[in-house]
């Protein structure tokens, strides 16, 4: 039976998903072996059944990210953190350590929506519509929130890195990456 894969982008830029498309014609080979369940690639918004592999891009910067991540953990046998954002917070995590600030989240929002001279915001308000997911006090890595089985570092990991990892996992073999395929940037 084909293995099922689910993917999602949380606090990420979709670069890691783009990198997955970078495996080019090997996508066809991948589709011989797997079926995609919940994923932005097929626009399925909910799990249709339990999956073998969950690929998660991005860390958690809001409440919804946490719920989605927990759902992935519940529904996937192997959960993989893909890319620096998922592994260690990546660029969004910069807001955790805004220098000299006792309240980095507030300072981040004020700079983004009020204070910067690049901002056009006639209402002069920080968006707070109830439909918007609540921002967390900090950006969290996946491993801060759930148990993560494997990490693929890189920003983004190259198509080759993703392919070699998936191929090894699907074949039930240990993942072996060539020197150039392990990158933290």
């Amino acid at each position: 039976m084909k293995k099922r894969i689910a993917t999602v982008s949380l606090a990420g830029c979709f670069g890691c998903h783009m990198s997955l498309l970078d495996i080019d014609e090997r996508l066809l080979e991948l589709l011989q072996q797997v079926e995609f369940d919940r994923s932005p690639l097929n626009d399925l918004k909910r799990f249709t059944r339990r999956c073998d592999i969950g690929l998660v891009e991005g860390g958690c910067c809001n409440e919804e990210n946490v719920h989605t991540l927990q759902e992935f953990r519940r529904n996937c046998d192997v959960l993989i953190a893909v890319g620096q954002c998922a592994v260690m917070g990546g660029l969004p995590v910069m807001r955790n350590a805004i220098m000299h600030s006792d309240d980095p989240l507030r300072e981040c929002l004020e700079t983004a929506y009020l204070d910067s001279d690049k901002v056009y915001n006639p209402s002069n308000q920080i968006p707070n519509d109830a439909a918007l997911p609540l921002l967390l006090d900090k950006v969290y890595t996946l491993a801060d929130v759930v148990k993560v089985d494997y990490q693929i570092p890189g920003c983004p990991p190259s198509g080759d890195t993703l392919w070699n990892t998936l191929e090894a996992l699907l074949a039930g073999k240990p993942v072996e990456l060539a020197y150039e395929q392990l990158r933290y940037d």
Partner: protein
Amino acid sequence: MNKPFKFEIDGIEIEAQRGQSIMQAADEAGVYIPRLCDTEGLEPQGSCRVCVVKQNGRAVSACTQPAIEGAKVENETEEILGYRRDLVRMLYHEGNHLCPICEASGRCELQAMGYRLGITQATKYPYLQPARPVDASHPDIVLDTNRCILCGRCIRASRDIDKKHVFEYVGRGINKRVGVNGNKLAETDVKLNDRAIDLATCPVGCIIQKGRGFFAPIGERQFDKKPITLGVGPGKNRGKS
């Protein structure tokens, strides 16, 4: 008395002079022992422990431990690689290491050590995410200790080679960090051509020369194609391109 003697590293016979450390003897024999706080031209200080080896079954730091005649030294065993991976992981977790935006990425010894050790696994340590102020007061130099691994190479280079004492440790335990001799870098007598500021002195991306960020393109940076090994350090092949 001063006759050279022999010992073994992972079964390879190494010749050593009296008074040499395991690391010095290994270097001369062309055997690489991973290291971060030790670098050519500076006194060893034995603080990062990445050079951990077992000498006759006892874990020691190769950069400070004298070689012993007839000793059996283990360097690249699974057990020792495990220690080194944990040490390097802890250095990552203790600071703010955002490699995708770091000037040192690709020529950073900490990152290169992570690559050499093949660190990808899910982590068991929390990220401490300190918020340390960046000192950009000097016209030519920036000091960003968010990436500092407390190796002391800048301290020793400034003290022993530049004879200036620009950098020093301040604080203790988990609060230990590198400070400068003055309120800020601009108030010290540091100069761009000091050895302490040489791009090869700081193994990571703390000491930045203004106007020189990202000088080597991705793919041509020092550790892009080849793992870190012997011959890395001031006066060697770093920071030249």
